[in-house]
């Protein structure tokens, strides 16, 4: 059953999500620090299974863009079987359901701590990931994986509000605008409880990691109150709906906000002053992987500054790689969206932690009740 649903979802959120890299490169073009390291298994005809978010790696689909997987294949001779998922929960369900055989996964912070707790990840051997030295200090020793034993940060970002410049007149946009009756029927909302609750919690002044049943209930009440104003609960449909001006306001991830602003002139993006969630997606090796050496090599490759830069530019999310960051254009560095200043990041943003089973269950129940109320 799980599989079937995932399949349908995968089909929904990206037809042909399973895309084997067909464009083979004769010679790698990327500059790497230690070529010999990558060529260890060149003649062995090996392969590696990578499971990543949709649209989350530079794929060479535009001119001048690097095709990261093809480069890796050309450099190492290791074939990359690349598949994608749409949500952390889908990834989790796939791994729990058994039968999954992945060597690389890239879950988000809270999911990483859940997987660590449930002993689903392999400890990393940093002698095989020399490029981890490029990861910025502020991303080391994160709360979701203390000591960085299981994960290497891949991208990060914040949650903000995408708005239609023609419809939204306010200049000072903060979370409470999503409760403003003026925009009734024009508001889109996250279709996942964790992100939706976080917004309510921000307004109510609770911690984004609260497990207090009363606070969770009050946050649910806040969301119930918002429901009549909400046009639809959606995730990636936001791209189409905001693009076609079906709606005026939608909370979403900064990286996607940047992409949307590039594609549509009428859209703006703001990271609310009052604070927000900061997320980190990090690379891990599942416990079930039998190809540790190859997996470490792949992680090291993703940390190559040139590769990290190509990925950051394509995905639009922020990079934790210090050298890649230096090479990002000033325009993006200073737009206040992708790289908010340190003061804001340190004082106003919170990274999710994994909630206790009870809190997760309560949140899910409250969410279901809120959504099924008519």
């Amino acid at each position, binding site marked *: *059953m799980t599989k079937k649903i995932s399949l349908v979802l995968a*089909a929904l959120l990206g037809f042909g999500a399973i895309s084997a890299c067909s464009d083979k490169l004769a010679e790698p073009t990327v500059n790497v620090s230690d070529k010999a390291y990558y060529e260890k298994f060149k003649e062995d005809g090996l392969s590696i299974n990578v499971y990543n978010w949709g649209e989350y790696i530079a794929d060479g689909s535009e001119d001048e863009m690097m095709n990261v997987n093809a480069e890796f294949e050309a450099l190492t001779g290791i074939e990359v079987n690349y598949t994608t998922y749409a949500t952390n929960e889908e990834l*989790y369900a796939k791994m729990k359901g058994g039968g999954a055989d992945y060597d690389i996964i890239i879950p988000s912070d809270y999911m990483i701590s859940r997987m660590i707790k449930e002993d689903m990840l392999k400890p990393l051997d940093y002698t095989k990931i020399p490029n981890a030295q490029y990861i910025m200090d502020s991303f080391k020793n994160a709360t979701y994986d203390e000591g960085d034993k299981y994960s290497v940060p891949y991208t990060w970002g914040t949650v903000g509000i995408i708005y239609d410049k023609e419809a939204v007149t306010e200049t000072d946009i903060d979370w409470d605008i999503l409760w403003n009756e003026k925009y009734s029927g024009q508001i889109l909302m996250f279709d996942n409880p964790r992100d939706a609750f976080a917004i309510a919690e921000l307004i109510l002044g609770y911690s984004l990691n609260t497990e207090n049943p009363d606070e969770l209930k009050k946050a649910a009440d806040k969301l119930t109150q918002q429901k009549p104003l909400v046009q*639809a609960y959606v995730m990636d449909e936001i791209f189409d709906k905001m693009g076609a001006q*079906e709606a005026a306001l939608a909370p979403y991830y900064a990286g996607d906000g940047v992409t949307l602003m590039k594609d549509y002139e009428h859209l703006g993006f703001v990271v609310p002053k009052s604070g927000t969630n900061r997320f980190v997606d990090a690379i891990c090796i599942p416990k079930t992987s039998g190809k540790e050496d190859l997996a470490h090599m792949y992680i090291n490759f993703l940390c190559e500054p040139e590769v990290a830069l190509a990925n950051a530019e394509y995905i639009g999310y922020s990079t934790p790689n210090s050298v890649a960051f230096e090479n990002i254009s000033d325009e993006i560095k200073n737009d206040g969206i992708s790289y908010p200043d340190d003061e804001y990041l340190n004082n106003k943003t919170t990274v999710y932690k994994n909630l206790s089973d009870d809190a997760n269950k309560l949140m*899910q129940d409250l969410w*279901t009740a809120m959504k099924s109320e*008519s």
Partner: protein
Amino acid sequence: MNENTHTHRSLLQKLIAAPYIVWMIVFIIVPLAMVAYFAMTTADGVFTLENIKDVWQYANIFVRSIWLAAIATVICLVIAYPAAYILSRTSASAQSTLLMLVMLPMWMNFLLRTYAWMTILGNNGLINSFLGLFGIDSIKMLNTQGAVVLGMVYNYLPYMILPLYTVMMKIDKSVLEAAHDLGCNGAKTLFKVVMPLSIPGITSGITMVFVPAISTFIISRMLGGGSQLLIGDLIEMQFLGNSYNPNLGSAISLVLMVIVLIIMTVMNQFDAGDDKVLM
């Protein structure tokens, strides 16, 4: 001798049936047993009825799903019945063309077809843009229950037309002629002759529309805006939601199956009853 051929044939029959029986065991019986197992155990594999009990808190979602699926089924029947009748009475060449038109949408991916409705029904969608030309304010169509029902009707209509058409095709023309000869007008022929003879088509059409409609989850998400939660969505949430709970998900699936089974049994009673009247 006679008996010998008989056993021989049944052995052959068994052999021919074997692939399907294996298929059924591996892909229907075993998964069903697993659903039942998960539904009645905790995460640690201990027997419990707690999950089944928990399902009842979602009674309102069940009621809504059954209600919407029932509306969609009735609309499908009302649209499909005359369509199938006309289809079965046209010339053979026209029939094959019309039949192809009925099936044509099914060649396209289900999700694409539903996705297309989003752009048709949206506030700035095709219909509202067209109305806008005449200065009519845009009507909210997307993200309503009506849109969900429309999505169900649109996607499952062929499954109603086809069985009806198949049954009506088999009605001998001479039966209709006899009815006319004996003084029945068109309407009376339809209600007294065609209708009773097409009951098997009606019941299988209703089954083929109602069952997938009640368990759909993509239609309600895409066209209902995610605020018209149906059972399908609820089941999906147990597997891909915040709290991974395949046991509750299985319990909901099991209860849904039982409900569908009951409804279908009741339906078949009507079917059998009508048959007897006909006899």
